[in-house]
């Protein structure tokens, strides 16, 4: 038993309604109630008086592992803008918008984040993603598995077979070692893959399957609800990034009535204007945020854009093609069997570009217009809107209206006419920041041992030196503790633990498996028996060292 006492800091633990000076005790990696004896001693004590103590950060929507991330790394040598050198206890790596696995873990930890969820892994790529997770230290990891363009799913929906759909969803979560269900442009990716173009409305038919995006969305939402998995359906709606898409976003929100749902990178889905008049693009956050404010079944993350070069990557193959055609930049596309596409295109967000500047403002509007911070999570949709390393910058815009207004001044004038950002005076408190960066996303994910510091919570803690320079404060935590181990001490990386991979295993009726196996063996290019990921996938061999 090893104990760690974090003594005398200002503990900001909104999930337990705490903002007060007190101690946090960790025993064997978990938070415990402090001993009643005030003279009790811990194996190690960190004097946190004068510091701010928060639970470790939780990134609920990012892209850090698997085939699309790795494709981005391989095809962008020009993106290797930095590196991490090896030390006696840590590995080297490259940084840039798509860091290597070890660098990803260290950089998240360096930022005070201890959990990250990759939001889009194809079932076919699950095992690959687990291999990358094994090599992503210092943080706990999880992924959401793509189901919105899955042939088996669409066939069951057409047949109206809810029971088999639910069983399949449960089976697939188990077989892939996933944490939750993701739907990306439901039906639209399949339609695009087969050459019919993208969908423009929820009621368009998906050729060859006889289902509509609306049906896919609501039936998967129902299946996730019925299975009572901790995180509800995680939705990337249709028409991402297109002018005028707010209408289909509203349609999507309304379709989810009666279900729990999380809407991803909502910033990218909040544009006015129209496809014929793309120059008329403007912010439609007020109407959408109002919808979120009045519908408690829904949560969002933002997908904030930050200025600079980054890499867009999405399971929405149509979006990849769209970005390639508007930017003229190189393009990786990968159609993946049974389920999903994949598009990767470099993108540079410029503050002189009206659309980019507007996207930036729309993201900030979202944070400021959703009344309840528990229902909006910080994200850049890393690396789509920018790197997760930009979170401290975003925090400073949210905490300081001055800072925000300064940044707004540097943007094209028309941004002020097309976004109400300049009129918003709200400033986030430290406690609200703690909600949107850890307590809220943990709650949205249903990770009950994360995002708070009550007894039983994971011993994941970030200790900040308070400062009025919020960007600096959140960029350089004084200590970061993962599972009770100090991993960052004053910017220095200590020997980091591996972190664990979190997954769910809802039960299903075994009698459905032969049907899935038959379908799989007929349609896939690998055998059913070789599909499911298992913990024991690590090497097995009969030989041993003499």
């Amino acid at each position, binding site marked *: 038993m090893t104990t760690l006492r974090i003594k005398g800091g200002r503990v900001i633990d909104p999930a337990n309604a705490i903002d007060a000076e007190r101690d946090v005790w960790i025993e064997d990696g978990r938070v415990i109630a402090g001993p009643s004896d005030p003279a009790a001693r811990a194996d190690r004590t960190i004097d946190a008086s004068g510091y701010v103590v928060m639970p470790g950060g939780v990134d609920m929507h990012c892209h850090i592992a698997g085939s699309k991330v790795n494709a981005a790394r391989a095809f962008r040598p020009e993106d290797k803008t930095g590196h991490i050198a090896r030390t006696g206890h840590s590995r080297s790596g490259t940084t840039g918008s798509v860091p290597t696995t070890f660098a990803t873990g260290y950089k998240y930890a360096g930022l005070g984040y201890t959990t990250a969820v990759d939001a889009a892994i194809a079932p076919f790529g699950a095992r690959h993603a687990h291999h990358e997770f094994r*090599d992503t230290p210092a943080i706990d990891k999880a992924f959401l598995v793509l189901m919105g363009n899955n042939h088996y799913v669409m066939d069951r929906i057409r047949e109206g077979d809810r029971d088999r759909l639910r069983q399949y969803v449960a089976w697939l979560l188990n077989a892939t070692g996933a944490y939750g269900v993701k739907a990306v442009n439901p039906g639209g990716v399949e339609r695009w893959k*087969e050459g019919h173009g993208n969908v423009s409305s929820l009621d368009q038919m998906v050729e060859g399957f006889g289902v509509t995006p609306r049906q896919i969305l609501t039936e998967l939402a129902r299946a996730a609800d019925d299975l009572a998995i901790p995180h509800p359906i995680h939705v990337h709606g249709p028409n991402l990034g297109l002018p005028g898409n707010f209408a289909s976003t509203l349609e999507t929100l309304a379709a989810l009535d009666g279900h729990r749902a999380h809407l991803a990178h909502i910033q990218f889905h909040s544009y006015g204007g129209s496809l014929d008049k793309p120059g008329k693009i403007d912010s439609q956050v007020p109407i959408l945020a109002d919808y979120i404010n009045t519908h408690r079944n829904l949560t969002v993350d933002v997908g904030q854009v930050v200025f600079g070069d980054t890499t867009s990557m999405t399971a929405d193959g149509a979006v990849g093609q769209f970005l390639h055609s508007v930017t003229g930049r190189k*393009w990786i*596309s990968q159609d993946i069997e049974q389920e999903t596409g994949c598009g990767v295109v470099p993108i540079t967000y410029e503050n002189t570009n009206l659309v980019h500047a507007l996207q930036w403002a729309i993201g900030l509007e979202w944070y400021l217009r959703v009344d309840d911070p528990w229902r909006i999570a910080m994200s850049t949709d890393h690396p789509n809107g920018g790197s997760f390393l930009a979170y401290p910058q975003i925090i400073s815009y949210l905490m300081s209206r001055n800072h925000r207004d300064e940044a707004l001044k540097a943007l094209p004038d028309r941004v002020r006419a097309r976004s109400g950002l300049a009129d918003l005076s709200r400033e986030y408190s430290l406690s609200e920041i703690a909600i949107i960066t850890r307590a809220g996303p943990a709650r949205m994910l249903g990770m009950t041992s994360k995002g708070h510091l009550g007894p039983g919570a994971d011993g994941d803690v970030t200790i900040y030196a308070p400062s009025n320079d919020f960007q600096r404060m959140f960029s350089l935590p004084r200590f970061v503790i993962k599972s009770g181990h100090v991993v960052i001490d004053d910017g220095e990386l200590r020997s980091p633990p591996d972190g664990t991979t979190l997954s769910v295993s809802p039960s299903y009726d075994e009698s459905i498996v032969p049907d899935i196996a038959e379908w799989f063996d007929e349609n896939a*290019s690998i055998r059913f028996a*070789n599909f499911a990921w298992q913990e024991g996938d*690590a090497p097995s061999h009969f*030989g041993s060292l003499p």
Partner: protein
Amino acid sequence: MPDADRTIADATCTACGCLCDDIVLTVSNHRIVAAEHACPIGAAWFLADHGPGDRPIATIEGQPATAEQALGRAAEILAKSRSPLIVGLTRTSLETQARAVAIADRLGAAIDPGDSGDSLPRWRAIQRVGIVSATLGEVKNRADVIVFWGVDPITTHPRHLERYSVGPRGRFVPEGRAGRTVVVVDVAPTATSAVADRFVRIVADEQGEVLATLRALVLGVEMPEAEDPVRELAETLKTARYGAFFFGPDLGRSRGGEAVVEDALKLVRDLNHATRFVALTLGGPGNPSGAEAVLTWQAGSPRAVDFSAGFPQFLPDDATAEAMLSQGRADAVLIVADDPTGFLSGEARAHLGRIPTIVIGPDATSRDATVALGSATMGIHSGGTIMRCDGATLPLRPALATTRPSDLEWLTDLERRLTEIPGEPRAISP
């Protein structure tokens, strides 16, 4: 575990890039005696004698040694080296490859899996223009036009047509073979062209021009000089509902190198203005795609990575196996699970003969090496995970027992010894 007579279903053959995972193996008396579903190449691989024979488990300077002695010497060589190189890595698992990259990181070594002459032109082209591609199951279910450009899968990947590209009935190709138009483009007729619907003969050194002409035609540019077969081919490509373009390493080795691959990738990309089209390779035997993937996720680039600065750098001109050896810059080499001598130049091989070499592989102790460590054979004795050229991963199902350590065990032990060797950590060049 003793070898009882038994069968193993859903085993994966690693003898070519198809990585067929439907093989049913029968094991009897310590040998694989049947490999159902395997093609002749695959059957020959499975049924071969994979036993160590009378080869010693390890050698030093050609003399039998204990594992202990050999590992000690290997660690000493690597610890002393100022410019180590790690090569091979194609005939082993993702898990072993990951360990090898860890060792490269620790040593500050250059690492270059497989044959960069084969793969670098493709990667350089992808780094310039990207690639529009798909998994093989998408080809099976969707593709109505198949182009084999300069590849002859019937000879090199015998079950490719049957399993993935031509024969299978798919969701959107219910007629199977009858629903697909198969075109072979090559310098001479091949076994594959004999079963194709069309054969277009080209001159090897004119591939770039032909691809560029096709692209122009596809984009609607008038090309008065274009010959009829090329015109017809452009029409076939354009009218595909979902086309698949298979190419091989020869494209990058032809005149123009990576620019020719780039022409092919741009042709396929631009076909997507009007229809759907994807480009794929056939893949190599073993796990070369896995080596590239692991190196990418750990070090940021698929090959030719140099860790000597204390962090990974992609140095396509300087950190390939060929460049490190032919320019005399490597002073020790660790060769894992492959024999690179087949593709190295005379100069590179000559340098290899002058520096200490550590070889890990099933036949290591019968090869030239300063230290040889005999290992189990991947997919026969040792398991782990491998990756197909389209990114599919497969768990191996080893059928036979062996007394030999796996290459992963050798590397793990070697790495441990490297951490134990006293003295200064390797100097990091600024």
